[in-house]
């Protein structure tokens, strides 16, 4: 057994936060360690909120977040560091809504989506589907994706209490792929074995293709962020450099995300 008293403090970068980004961060970490074997990158999930909270407490070097800072978080981090944290966009993503492949519905407008997740629309029939009650899944309330949808689609109103909260977009996709009357949302990178809905805007159906997201036609795109202390450690800075490099961005593309243009 490895000698547990031995210590390897130097050369560690802790990365914590968004579950949407955890797989991507994991891939980056592995590729980076191949380049810089002297630096260890640890990746944990928990949600954008917890990641930022850990940045404030000093428990992590890099907080990964699928959303921007809330006013309270901004305040807290500024109080901790004396200046705003270093915020770097590292990839783009779109949030899509998906349904079971057996569901005939192919597109919904933003208003309809809003109605669904506010709990006002509870049946598929008026939306163009079969006559079934609607079952909606969301992420857990500490998730950045949850906060993003609440801000952009629900206008900061609360999700209805009947929304089922699952840990991780993978779980949401899994649930939706098994239930014909389900609808859920999450990073588009995760949407497999489900049908991604197009968003109906001004009569046009817009799918979250890379072109539509890059051009801004698809409304629900977001940047994914790394947040660091204003003066990060050399190791953390090196990791950040790698992530922004062409190689890092290519990895993002392979993982189903969109590189920063």
């Amino acid at each position, binding site marked *: 057994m490895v*000698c*547990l*008293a031995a*210590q390897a403090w130097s050369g560690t970068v802790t990365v914590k936060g968004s579950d949407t980004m955890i797989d991507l961060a994991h*891939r980056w*970490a592995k590729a980076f360690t191949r380049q810089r074997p002297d630096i260890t990158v640890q*990746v944990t*999930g928990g949600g954008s909120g917890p990641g930022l909270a850990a940045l404030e407490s000093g428990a992590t070097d890099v907080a990964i977040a699928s959303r921007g800072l809330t006013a309270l978080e901004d305040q807290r981090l500024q109080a901790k560091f004396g200046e705003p944290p270093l915020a770097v966009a590292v990839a783009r993503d779109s949030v899509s809504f998906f349904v079971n492949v057996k569901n005939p519905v192919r597109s919904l407008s933003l208003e309809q989506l809003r109605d669904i997740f506010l709990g006002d629309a509870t049946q598929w029939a008026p939306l163009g589907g079969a006559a079934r009650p609607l079952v909606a899944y969301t992420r857990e309330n500490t998730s950045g994706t949850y906060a993003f949808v609440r801000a952009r689609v629900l206008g900061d109103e609360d999700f209805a209490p009947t929304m089922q909260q699952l840990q*991780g977009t993978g779980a949401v996709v899994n649930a939706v792929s098994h239930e014909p009357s389900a609808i859920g949302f999450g990073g588009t990178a995760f949407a*497999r074995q489900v049908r991604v809905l197009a968003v109906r805007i001004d009569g046009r159906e817009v799918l979250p293709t890379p072109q539509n997201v890059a051009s801004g036609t698809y409304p629900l795109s977001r940047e994914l962020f790394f947040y660091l202390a204003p003066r990060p450690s050399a190791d953390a800075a090196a990791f950040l450099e790698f992530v922004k490099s062409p190689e890092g961005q290519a990895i993002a593309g392979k993982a189903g995300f969109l590189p920063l243009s």
Partner: protein
Amino acid sequence: MKAHRVNQISAGLTGLAALLIVAGLVVVVIDAVLGGWGALSWRFFTEEPGDDVSEGGVFPAIYGTVVLTLLMTVAVMPLGVATAIYLHEYAPPHSRLARWARAAINNLAGVPSIVFGLFGLGFFVQLLGKAVDHVRGGGLHYAQPGLLWAALTLALLTLPIVIVTTEEALRAVPVETRMASLALGATRAQTLGRVVLPGALPGIMTGAILALSRGAGEVAPVLLTGAAYSLPTLPNALSSQFMHLGYHAYVLSTQAPDVEAARPMMYATVLVLLMLTFALNLVAIVVRSRARRGST
């Protein structure tokens, strides 16, 4: 005769209930085996997860689980055995303190595991960890989740198991043996060390194995005190985070980006965890029955 029929039917019905319970167990095991057996391979046990988490193996999770539970056992055994010795050998029969100590242990056994996790987080990580860092100087190392705190949290959780099985083992050593030893002039401590404990050893080992098995399977306490999803190196210090079989299975089932591709991996991880806890439990059961048969 009618009475006979009644007996038969009732035996049949209650037997059916027993069978259903066993069937429940069998179904869980079969499901894990069916889903995960195909993904088991030498690579699975020895490699770390690949770039795509649905490839590669779970060696770091196995390693993390093993190291964690061994640490936990080192922490819990001395305390647990000593407490059992106190309760069984030293506590005055009508002492109120002893009664309270015993009641405390009973209640400790009932505390939900997530509350242990909360305690581990708040007390060990944030309070003790901060104190340790303060004393050591040199930055943030212990005031965050890690092996040491997770092991201590689990040790608290498994303490009642060790205490109760040790007590049972102590009880199995006949009173006459102790008396003979004392009559020959040995002190209580000598009797304890040279007569009672060796005699109770199989039972104490049973306790250790049961605690190991329990500790290896618990996820809620390590959720908050040290388990991580992706670590490129194995934990090499008491303050390191670690990967964990149960936590890994949980994360895979909720956050794997491609659920279909990750499915065999999920099942295989679950299967490995199940095999581990089963093996430990079986060993404990065998040790216990051998000890019982031997000590007549």
